Each structure stands twice: as C-alpha cells, then as structure tokens.
C-alpha cells in the first residue's frame, strides 16, 4: 500500500456542516427560507466532496489529516480508508435526499418559527454522523457520538404526538447509558496503552489481549455500541423513536443512524481489535451470531404484528440490522462483503420506505398499515417506489436486497454454517408475508371511506423526486451490482484480510 496521503478533504466533510449548522440560526434571521436551503447546499457539497475523497482513497489506499498539525498519536487524526470512504458517501447522499425531501415535509409538521433551529439541529445530526465516521481517534469519536445523539434526541421529540416526547426520553436514557459505557471502554483502553489513536491502539493491543482490563473494555464497547445499533435485545428504544419522529427525521435516522453505529462496531471489532481477538480470545462472534439470528427472525415476526406503518418499518429494521451483524460475524471476506453491501442497500431500501411513508402522511394523514388500502390509485408514483423497496426487502432478484442476501448466504456457506441459510430464507419468507400483505392492499383493496374522499395526486416534486431516486437506486445497484460489491470487497479485505 502507498503512503497515506495528507489532505484537508476529510476535515472539510465535518467542518462545513459544523460551521453551517452553527450559522443556520443567524442566516435564518436574514430570511426564513435560508435555513432549509443551507441544509440542502451543505449536504450536497458534502456529498460531492465525499465522492472525490472516495476516488482518492481508491487511488492511494488511505487518506489522513492531522488536526492542528500534531502528528498521531499526539494529536487527533482523521483517517479514511475504503470502509469509511463508502460510509461517508452513503451518509452524505442520504443527507442530500432527505434534506430535499424535508423542506415541504418539515413545513407541514413543524411550527414555522422553529425552522431555523430545526435545520441547525438537522445539520448537527449530519455533522455528528460524518464526524464519527471520519475520525481515527477514539475519544474524538465519543465527542461526535454525543453531538449526533443530542441532536437526534431533540429531533425525535419534535414529532407531533406526545408519544414523541417519551420516545425521545427513553432513547436519551438508553443512549446515554450506551455512550457512557463507550466512554468507560475508552478509559480502560487508555489505561493500558496510554493512547487514544485507533491505529496506535491496534498496534499496542495484541500483547495485552489476555488482560482482564482489555476484555472488560471490549465488553463495554460491544454493549454500548449494540444499544446505538439497536441490536436485539437492546433495540427497545428504536420502534417508538422511528414511529413518532417527524417524517424527515425518521428517514434520516433509519437510513443513516444505525448504519453509522454498525460502522463503528466493525471499526472497533476489526481494526482497533484484530479479528483473531474476536475469534480466538473470546467467543464474541458466536454470541453476536446468535443474537443476530434472533434479531432477524424476531424483527420480522414483530413487524408482521404491527398496525402502524412506521412502526412496522422500524421492527423490520431490527431484523435488517441482524443481517449486517450476521454477515460481519462470519469473519470471512464474502460475509463481510455482504454486511457492507447491506449497510448501503438497507439505507437505500429503508430510506425509500420511510420517505414514502412520510409522503403518505403529508398527503393523506394515513399512519396505519391498513390505511394503505387502495393507496395505489391515489398516489401511484409514490406507491410504485414503495413497492420497489418492499420487493427489495424481500430479496427479489434484480433488486439490491437480493445482492446482499446472496453474499450473506455465500459467506455463511464459506464459514461452513449452512444452518444460517435457514435463518436467511425463513426471514425472507416472513418479509414476503408482511410486505406482500401491504402491496396487496395498496393495489387490490378498496380504499377506506376517508381515503375515498382524498383526491388522487402526488406530493410536491421536492418530496417525490428523492423517493424516486432512492427507489431507482434499489434497482440500479441491484442490476449493476459490480461497483458497490467491488468497493465493499476491498473494504472487507481491509477488515478481515488477516483473519485465521
């Protein structure tokens, strides 16, 4: 591999959203509409920069930036390789899509005088996510976890129902416990190594693998991150949060929040710690494989039982997070590729579904699954996008969902765990049950009386286009899977290349 390249690109990915978030309330004093516009411009610029950065990473392998020009491990380092390069592109892309969607959606859900602060908070959530992904310093990661968490709690509480408040409060409690565990884990690592730089930790930790301090640190990280990741059985905060948050917020959180946490879990388990630690020192991969399998099945089954559309989607996410963890815990290249591709694919699918759900609320006020009856005639384009994403969730060929499941299944076979195929197939069956029921209602059921009176028609363009774009990508990246898969394979090689 070439020498890592020093460039301020990674910094700009965090600095621009951060400074803009802080400026948003000031800009909005000049003109109200500048708040929404700032969010759109900033996420778009970040997306372009993230693409440039990924291109650079593909060329040189690793791009770093030393903040304050202090060389690591003495200063804080930003370090981007293929893994976080992909996640940065993903997060910023979803940021663009959701901020375009947000303008009309937020206008209908949030009081106007709160818009400046709302968009500031939206950008802070974005800043936090980007900062978590880009950093190579484990304490800096904690700081940005807190930026994204605090803004996340508040954004969820902005939902219209009073349940949004309790959902936010419960998330705050669990999230704070999770973050405090992570902080304590960092303390344990620091105590034994004297460093906070992730690359430096990776070098210093192997001789300490038998130390009980390090084992405790690992346990603390795993539990803390599992809360943020909403890994079964620590998912309890998520369904209420996603159900009651404003549409734009649930879309952003569902598509990026848990993905960023998944990234951190992979980073800690496979970069800071060596895969051999996970495999040979403690049976953590076994435990997480079991939990992931339960998550996949339980998430899908709970989803079937739901009557609220967003809550159904949230429980489905519990299962999908299980897929990501399952693929990673196979600790082989194919399985990891599947997990990474699924991080991207699930963001696109769940993004589409939550955007469509938001569009339905905007247009008709319908929040229940049953309320979708006959919706196909009222909002044909939105429902087509919804259907594409739903088919992808089931894993129909030519969609992204199929690509993920294909690699996950191959990875399970590579690891000699054929029984995991049963889990994957069973959950696909369960997904088919609840999504087929919905699709059936959308197209073949008679609309309810209230819906009958709503005139047919789509949401405004600014909400429709983002939904179509993500749905289109669910197909495009399912047919042309080479690009995401080859990038994911490279990243997977970085993570589990040396495992045995």
């Amino acid at each position, binding site marked *: 591999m070439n020498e890592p390249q020093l460039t301020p690109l990674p910094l700009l990915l965090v600095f621009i959203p951060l400074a803009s978030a802080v400026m948003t309330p000031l800009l909005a004093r000049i003109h109200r509409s500048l708040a929404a516009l700032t969010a759109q411009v900033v996420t778009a610029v970040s997306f372009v920069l993230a693409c440039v950065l990924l291109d650079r990473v593909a060329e040189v392998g690793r791009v770093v930036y030393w903040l304050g020009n202090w060389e690591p491990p003495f200063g804080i380092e930003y370090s981007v390789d293929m893994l976080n390069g992909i996640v940065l592109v993903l997060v910023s892309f979803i940021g663009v899509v959701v901020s375009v969607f947000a303008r009309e959606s937020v206008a209908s859900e949030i009081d106007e005088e709160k818009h400046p602060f709302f968009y500031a908070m939206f950008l802070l959530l974005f800043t936090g996510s980007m900062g978590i992904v880009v950093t190579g310093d484990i*304490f800096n990661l904690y700081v940005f976890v807190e930026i994204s968490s605090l803004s996340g*709690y508040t954004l969820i509480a902005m939902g219209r129902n009073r349940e949004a408040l309790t959902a*936010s409060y419960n998330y705050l409690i669990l999230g704070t416990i999770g973050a*405090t565990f992570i902080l304590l884990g960092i303390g344990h690592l620091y105590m034994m190594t004297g460093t906070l730089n992730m690359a430096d930790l990776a070098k210093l930790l192997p001789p300490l693998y038998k130390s009980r301090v390090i084992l405790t640190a690992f346990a603390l990280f795993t539990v803390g991150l599992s809360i943020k990741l909403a890994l079964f059985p620590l998912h309890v905060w998520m369904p209420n949060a996603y159900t009651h948050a404003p549409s734009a917020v649930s879309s952003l959180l569902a598509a990026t929040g848990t993905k960023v946490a998944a990234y951190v879990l992979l980073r800690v388990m496979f970069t800071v710690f060596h895969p051999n630690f996970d495999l040979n020192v403690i049976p953590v991969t076994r435990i997480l494989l079991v939990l992931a399998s339960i998550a996949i099945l339980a998430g899908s089954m709970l989803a079937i039982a739901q009557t609220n559309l967003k809550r159904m989607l949230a429980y489905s996410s519990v299962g999908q997070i299980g897929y990501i963890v399952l693929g990673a815990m196979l600790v082989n290249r194919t399985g990891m590729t599947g997990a990474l591709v699924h991080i991207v694919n699930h963001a696109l699918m769940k993004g589409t579904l939550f955007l469509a759900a938001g569009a339905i609320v905007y247009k008709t006020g319908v929040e229940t699954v049953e309320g979708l009856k006959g919706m196909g005639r009222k909002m044909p384009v939105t429902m087509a996008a919804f259907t594409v994403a739903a088919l992808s969730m089931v894993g129909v060929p030519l969609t992204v969902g199929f690509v993920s499941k294909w690699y996950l299944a191959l990875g399970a076979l590579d690891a000699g765990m054929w029984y995991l195929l049963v889990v994957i197939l069973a959950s696909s069956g369960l997904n088919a049950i609840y999504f087929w029921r919905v699709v059936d209602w959308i197209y073949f059921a008679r609309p309810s009386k209230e819906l009958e009176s709503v005139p047919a028609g789509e949401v405004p363009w600014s909400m429709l286009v983002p939904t179509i774009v993500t749905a289109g990508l669910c197909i495009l990246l399912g047919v042309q899977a080479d690009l995401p898969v080859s990038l994911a394979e490279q990243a997977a090689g970085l993570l589990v290349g040396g495992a045995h």
Partner: protein
Amino acid sequence: MDELILGKYNYWVYVALMMIGFYAVIAKPNLIKKIIGVNIFQTAVFLFYISIGKVEGGTAPIVWDQAVHYDNPIPHVLILTAIVVSVSTTAVAFALIIKIKERFGTIEEDQIRDLRRTPTGEET
C-alpha cells in the same frame, strides 16, 4: 491484603457508584430520579478517569520549577469534555421532562405507560 484494598480502592468506589446510578436509572419510575441516576452513573466514570491520571508524588499538571513528577493531564482534559457533555444531556433531559409533564400531566413512567395504552387523541 491491605495493599490490595488500598491499591484498588478508587476503582472499587467507581464501580459502586456506577451500580448505584445504574440502579436508579432502571429501577426508579420517576423521570427526574432517573436523571439523578444518570448523573451519578456518569460521574462514577469521571472518577475512574481521574484516578488513572494520579501518579505517586506527582504535582498538579501546571509547569512549576520545583516539580519532580507531574500527574498525567490527559484524563483531566478528557473528563472536562465529558462533564460538558454530561451537563448538556442533563439540560436536554430536563427540557423533555418539562414537556412530558405538560402533555401527560405526570412524570412517573408507570402512569405515562397507562396513559399511552388508552390514547386520548390529545393534540397540541
């Protein structure tokens, strides 16, 4: 035995404080009591960090010509940041609790759960 107790006493106290705070967070149904628990839970971790930084015979980490050893300043810096995070979380939590009181009329978790089972369709 003395050595064992004195050598680790700070660390055991941090564990004890953490357990007390954690207990309040999960076992107490009052939302404000939970935040008191969160505060104890977090300061316990801060105590752990500050204890790491202490060196036998060290002086406060401010350059001083008669100092032989200094205490490790890194944990101090990290905990300054963490205290700020902690007070920020507390402020947001109180704001949420005030809103919950306004819209549910109570800050007891059990009563809120009962209210949510029988939705009143209450809106702003």
